[in-house]
């Protein structure tokens, strides 16, 4: 027998609710079920995406490099298509009227209604579009969607590696970023990727209520697309083109050029040679072209500026000089007797010039690139100090993590113990002091050596984005130069090194006289980095991949630097004879064509 108290009262209330809900469910699903099923069948919502144009990419002077053009894609909404046609009819209609062969995968998506919408064909021709409109009564549930396509200008090809490429978002990217729509272009590499959030914009959405034939009945909600922001790179495409032409007219198959403004560390040119056709890369190469690109031994797809690591050779000497001067191992006046060879015990370290260099100071040692001078200075300075200054200059560090991919390997005692499990010998210090041995740097790292020398010790953040046009505020937003640290270099020490680099070009025994052709005073340093020993090279008959690498770093004008940079020629054999003339060609044209003005 149930006692009527408060708890039973409460249970009674709960029971009343329960039966009310059961009644309601029965009413909705069983009594009015047909009615609601009909509404739900009619009541079909479709989401149309409108993909805004991606931001344009310009060089620093507003030369257009990349932009978007609209193309049309044929989209199907499986839910509606399924209701109107059998799979057989569908296949036939598409084949007969639009000349489209439906593949199994797409057919499966439609048949099983796996996605709200599916792309049937991209990049429709004018004729396809006309046919679609003429026979549209055969295509209920099909729509044309505007899909932007990226176009790279002729100029952009000089800058292929830097620009990168775009593509549709992967499933993973769609998952990670709910704002992406399947047909929006996203950056996959290069500045297209680094500045994707600026360039991309936002797709618009329009939710439309349609009936069973796919006719639009009502717009439910709408979100306007937001256009991507245009960006301006620090690259001067004229300089980039000169760098490219320097290479293409030189017959050297592989290398890199980086030119920067040492006062701001804006990248004016960044060439990895050989390069490839950007537009074709984006639209897809034929299998043969692709094979040719991937199997080419000069690696056209790799951006050597940031990805290649090579021994620097003598272009490392200015950095070692500054370390030695600042740490008191030498003064600008210190003269050291530098003969044809230097011995530690039974080990012999030779000078590149068998005649030796004589009794010289640091400036003269840079002029002739005297190895035996730097062997002695390096030993006196110690490996710790060389490593310390390399780090101060930013070697082994990503000064701009967005741009830089690989970092330099600067060997130290700990490094050798950890990586090679070996003890550090004096011979290792000797090798390191002329930029040989275990040390490897990227061509971009070479600019980290020359920039602080040119600008008086400022380590800045390298950048490639000059500005972007912010659509929201309708203003141009500039990237300001950013200082990371200042290396304190005494003026007389810096002057001694700069003078040494001046002598490289203008001195009687300078190693890079080719640079005299440049119409402004400049200073540089050659580097010929040994990859294999002379004996091995000889055995291999001086085959290309056994030759030395050729380097040249330079800045100009000498008194008030406005440009600094590096030319790297993979297996180019001689810094002075090969890399320096290329730099001379580039700088000569830059100043002659008044791309950089001098007062």
């Amino acid at each position, binding site marked *: 027998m149930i006692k009527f*108290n408060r*708890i039973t009262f*409460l249970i009674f209330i709960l029971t009343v609710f329960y039966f009310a809900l059961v009644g309601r*469910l029965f009413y909705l*699903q069983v009594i009015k079920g047909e009615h609601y099923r009909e509404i739900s069948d009619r009541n079909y919502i479709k989401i149309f995406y409108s993909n805004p144009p991606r931001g344009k990419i310009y060089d620093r002077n507003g030369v257009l490099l990349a932009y978007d053009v609209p193309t049309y894609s044929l989209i199907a909404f499986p839910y509606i298509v399924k209701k109107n046609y059998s799979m057989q009819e569908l296949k036939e209609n598409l084949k007969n009227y639009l000349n489209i062969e439906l593949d199994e995968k797409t057919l499966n998506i439609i048949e099983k209604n796996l996605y709200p919408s599916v792309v049937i064909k991209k990049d429709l021709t004018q004729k396809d579009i006309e046919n679609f409109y003429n026979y549209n009564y055969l295509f209920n549930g099909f729509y044309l969607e505007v899909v932007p396509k990226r176009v790279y200008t002729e100029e952009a090809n000089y800058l292929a590696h830097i620009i990168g490429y775009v593509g549709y978002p992967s499933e993973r990217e769609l998952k990670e970023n709910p704002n992406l729509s399947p047909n929006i272009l996203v950056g996959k590499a290069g500045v297209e990727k680094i500045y994707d959030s600026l360039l991309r914009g936002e797709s618009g959405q329009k939710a439309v209520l349609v009936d069973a034939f796919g006719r639009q009945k009502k717009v439910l909600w709408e979100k306007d697309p937001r256009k991507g922001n245009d960006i301006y790179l620090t690259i001067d495409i004229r300089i980039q083109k000169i760098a490219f032409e320097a290479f293409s007219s030189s017959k050297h198959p592989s290398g890199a050029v980086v030119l920067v403004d040492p006062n701001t560390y804006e990248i004016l040119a960044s060439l990895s040679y050989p390069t490839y056709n950007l537009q074709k890369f984006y639209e897809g190469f034929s299998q043969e072209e692709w094979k040719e690109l991937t199997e080419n031994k000069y690696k056209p797809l790799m951006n050597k500026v940031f990805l290649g690591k090579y021994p620097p050779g003598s272009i490392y000497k200015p950095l070692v000089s500054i370390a030695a001067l600042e740490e008191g191992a030498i003064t600008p006046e210190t003269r050291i007797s530098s003969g044809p060879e230097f011995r530690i015990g039974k080990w012999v370290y030779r000078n590149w010039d068998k005649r030796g260099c004589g009794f010289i100071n640091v400036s003269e040692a840079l002029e002739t690139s005297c190895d035996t001078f730097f062997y002695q200075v390096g030993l006196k300075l110690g490996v710790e100090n060389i490593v310390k200054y390399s780090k101060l200059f930013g070697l082994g560090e990503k000064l701009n993590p967005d741009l830089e991919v690989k970092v330099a390997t600067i060997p130290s005692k700990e490094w050798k113990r950890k990586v090679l499990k070996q003890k550090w010998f004096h011979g290792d210090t000797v090798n390191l002091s002329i930029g040989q041995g275990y040390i490897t740097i990227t061509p971009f790292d070479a600019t980290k050596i020359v920039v602080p020398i040119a600008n008086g010790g400022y380590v800045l953040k390298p950048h490639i984005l000059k500005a972007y046009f912010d659509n929201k505020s309708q203003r141009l937003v500039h990237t300001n130069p950013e200082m990371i640290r200042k290396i304190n270099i005494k003026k007389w020490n810096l002057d001694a090194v700069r003078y040494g680099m001046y002598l490289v070009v203008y001195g009687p025994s300078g190693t890079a006289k080719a640079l005299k052709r440049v119409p402004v005073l400049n200073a540089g340093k050659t580097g010929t980095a040994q990859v294999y020993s002379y004996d091995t090279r000889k055995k291999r008959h001086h085959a290309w991949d056994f030759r030395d690498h050729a380097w040249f770093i330079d800045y100009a004008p000498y008194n008030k630097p406005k440009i600094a940079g590096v030319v790297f020629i993979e297996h180019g054999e001689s810094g002075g004879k090969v890399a320096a003339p290329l730099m001379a060609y580039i700088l000569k044209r830059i100043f002659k064509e008044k791309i950089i003005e001098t007062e």
Partner: protein
Amino acid sequence: MFNLFKKIKQADPIVYLLTAFLLIWSVINIYSASYHEYSNLYIKQIVFVSIAFFIITFLPFLIEYRKFGYISFYLYLISIILLILVKFFGVSILGAKRWINLGFFQLQPSEVAKFSMIIFSAYFISNTKLPLSFKDFLKIMGLSAIPFMLIYSQPDLGSAILVVLPVLVMVFLAKFNIKYIIGFVLTGIILSPFIWTHLKDYQKNRIIAFLNPESDPKGTAYHIIQSKIAIGSGMLTGKGYLQGSQSKYYFLPEQHTDFIYATIGEEWGFVVSFLILTVYFILSLRIFYIGMKINELFGKFLCYGIASIIGFQAFINIAMNVGMAPVVGVPLPFLSYGGTALIMFSLMIMMVLNIEYINKKEGFRFHSQDALNY
């Protein structure tokens, strides 16, 4: 270990099996509700459901519920602190600050507050002189007003109501003078115009939309209409798993949280939506029944509180889905997506199983002279 399995066999089979049924259903439905969203919500749900199974299977025989009574005030304090923290460090989703990001998991303090409020009130009531005096009534209502206000200001009206609702049920069952209760209800009615002016716009819209759905088919009422269409179009046996067009094509917003029931209704029809509604009903009744059997006041009121929150929260959510209640943002226990809520409801079931187990072991020995009268 063997001992533990022997104990597990003694768990109340109705409570355990019904909960297990709901947990398994939750995975099936979250998968369906997030099917078209490139989403892996269901994987997270599987992780939470596994934890939930662990909680309801093993923990009831490893704990002693009375100890929670002794620390109930601290539990209450902790949940207040969490609610204050969420104000400052909370993550905003859709304009409401309800979650604290712990990196691997987003904690929802209001769910923690619901549970700790039940434990705290049950302990409070079991340690005062019954029937509840007016002074004690004011005390407990004052203490529950703090979490209410904090949650209400998130803003989350639904959860705020659900923090207070079980307390009101417990107060009612503690034989608080019926005259006061009537007075309390009347005051509420008189104050309602005043409360109306203090509601947020979206809350007013929801109430208006509920009273007259056709008034604004694009805005708030849109949810109610679409939800009704989804459920109704399921008819007797549903459109089939993963085949719901209403839910799959973005008609239904929040289909994996507040409107998960509509997904079930659409894909499985009357048969399963009726079954699930009935499961909640029986589960709630069974917990009330366990509470009635028990003659120790703390355990008894805990059962009442838990039974009422599971029953009423499920019914309010379902009523919302079928268009019988305004959209107040109340998730469906166990089935809606949300880790904190799932864990908290599992802990409640753990508590019930533990209360039943311990009291059965003790042979329903008397703790309070007239406990059976409550």
